[in-house]
């Protein structure tokens, strides 16, 4: 028994960690090995053609970029200021507790329910119709709780002594936040924002009913129009397209581009975090 124990120990640990890593490796290997052949400069810079069996995925890429930018415009200022309120100003009473509870629960709400909410509020209620703006707002709401909690986390890591340093020489609270707290928390906040946006860029369910389309001729470009997006394009190519086998390479290509976009955002976040941790 005593002799066996180290063997069980190492087997268990290696098995668990190995399996988890294997998942990642398989995912990446499959996507890269099958997606790479489809990838070319032309693939990311041209319109789809020939009933989407040829050509590129430019509109899906621009759609995703615009959508992500919109998400950022909605969620970043709101999220950061809400986090500042919670962490710097809010007294600990029932309203604050309610806000915090709301945020925690909002981040657990399934994304498809945000889709419904976006449909009911933006598409229907505010008469935006199915459009980039409606989808962007929906994703913005979805991202809000994540941005708030990561920002709060970053603010919380700033020690009280930093704030006191500013207050102690007669800065107002707002000045201490603007001049001392926010600059110190910036790397943490940025990391959170970038990670959240990478999540938003990969979301599909919330845009299903709020504005994404299968195919758009020309470039859309207007906020009140429908749009194409990478994740939805992948979904359609892999489930709905007429000649599913013919477009499989394109689907792999799309998946690879999507993963690259998301991973690039993640890398940015890691980089910010890494640089920051080195500075300390």
């Amino acid at each position, binding site marked *: 028994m005593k002799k066996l124990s180290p063997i069980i120990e190492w087997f268990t640990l290696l098995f668990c960690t190995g399996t988890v890593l294997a998942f990642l490796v398989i995912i990446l290997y499959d996507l890269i090995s099958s997606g790479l052949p489809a990838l070319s400069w032309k693939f990311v810079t041209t319109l789809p053609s020939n009933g989407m069996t040829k050509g590129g995925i430019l509109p899906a890429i621009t759609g995703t970029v615009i959508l992500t930018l919109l998400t950022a415009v909605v969620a970043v200022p709101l999220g950061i200021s809400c986090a500042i309120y919670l962490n710097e100003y809010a007294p600990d009473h029932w309203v604050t507790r309610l806000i915090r509870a709301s945020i925690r629960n909002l981040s657990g709400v399934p994304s498809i329910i945000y889709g419904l909410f976006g449909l009911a509020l933006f598409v229907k209620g505010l008469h935006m119709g199915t459009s980039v703006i409606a989808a962007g707002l929906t994703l913005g709401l979805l991202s809000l709780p994540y941005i708030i909690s990561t920002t709060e986390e970053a603010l919380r890591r700033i020690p009280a002594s930093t704030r006191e340093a500013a207050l102690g020489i007669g800065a107002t609270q707002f000045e201490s936040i603007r001049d001392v707290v926010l600059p110190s928390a910036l790397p943490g906040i940025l990391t959170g924002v970038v990670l959240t946006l990478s999540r938003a860029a990969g979301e599909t369910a919330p845009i299903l009913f709020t504005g994404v389309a*299968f195919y758009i001729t020309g470039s859309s470009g207007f906020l009140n129009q429908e749009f194409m997006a990478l994740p939805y394009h992948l979904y359609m190519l892999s489930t*709905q397209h*007429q000649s599913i086998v013919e477009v499989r390479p394109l689907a792999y290509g799309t998946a690879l581009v999507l993963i690259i976009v998301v991973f690039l955002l993640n890398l940015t976040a890691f980089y910010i975090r890494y640089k920051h941790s080195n500075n300390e």
Partner: protein
Amino acid sequence: VKIKGSDTEVNLAVILAEHFYKTDTHRSLAISGGGSGLGIASLLNGQADMANSSRPLTQEEKDLFEKRGIALKTVVFAEDATAFIVHKNFPLDSINVQALADLLSGKSKTWRQVTGQSTPVNIYGRQNNSGTYSFVQKKLGIQFSADSKEMNGNAQIIEGIKTDESGIGYVGAGYIMHDSAGEQGVKVLRITDSAEKKAISPLDAQAIAEHRYFFQRPLYQFILSRSWTKAAPFIDFEKSKKGQEIIRNSGYYIID
């Protein structure tokens, strides 16, 4: 112009739009698939200008349009033949309507009646808002078995059948057009509606033109009257020579 609905028609619409865009770059078309129900619902909801549909409006829908005061124009722009497909190794080439009804309704749970083998029947169908789904149900006068898989698109059905030796599914003609020789690994069944008549393939253009295939149907486009001016150039394009050629090349039929 937002065009929505009908998985059967969506790929056709995409190709038409692509070519239309070459002749007219001012108009932007946004096309989404889903079932026919999706298109019609989107019209009702004000989220589309034009709905593709592989079935006519139901009475219920007509009432709804009336109630909401929405006026429509209807265009029939092509004819489709719904094909029944099985795995390429399947021992039969044709089937009669009655047997189909029994299989799809779940009355026969195995293939015994048809092929003599008692392998279970796996039904690959469409989701319930699909025009094809309701079209087949209506034609056969049945309710689909609750065990049938509800795929989101024709393509997924083909995918399923390819690997399933005891599966059966139905798809629009356009989906099998590319694949007459069975390179996709599926076989298209010929259909008879009574024992004495000869079984007909959905790929048989002649028979379709003569309205002899059991599961043939017109493909509709419903257009909001108030969007008609926006949509008209596209409709005109469909009717043009170039448009008609595209429709035929995509595996659909045109009946005048």
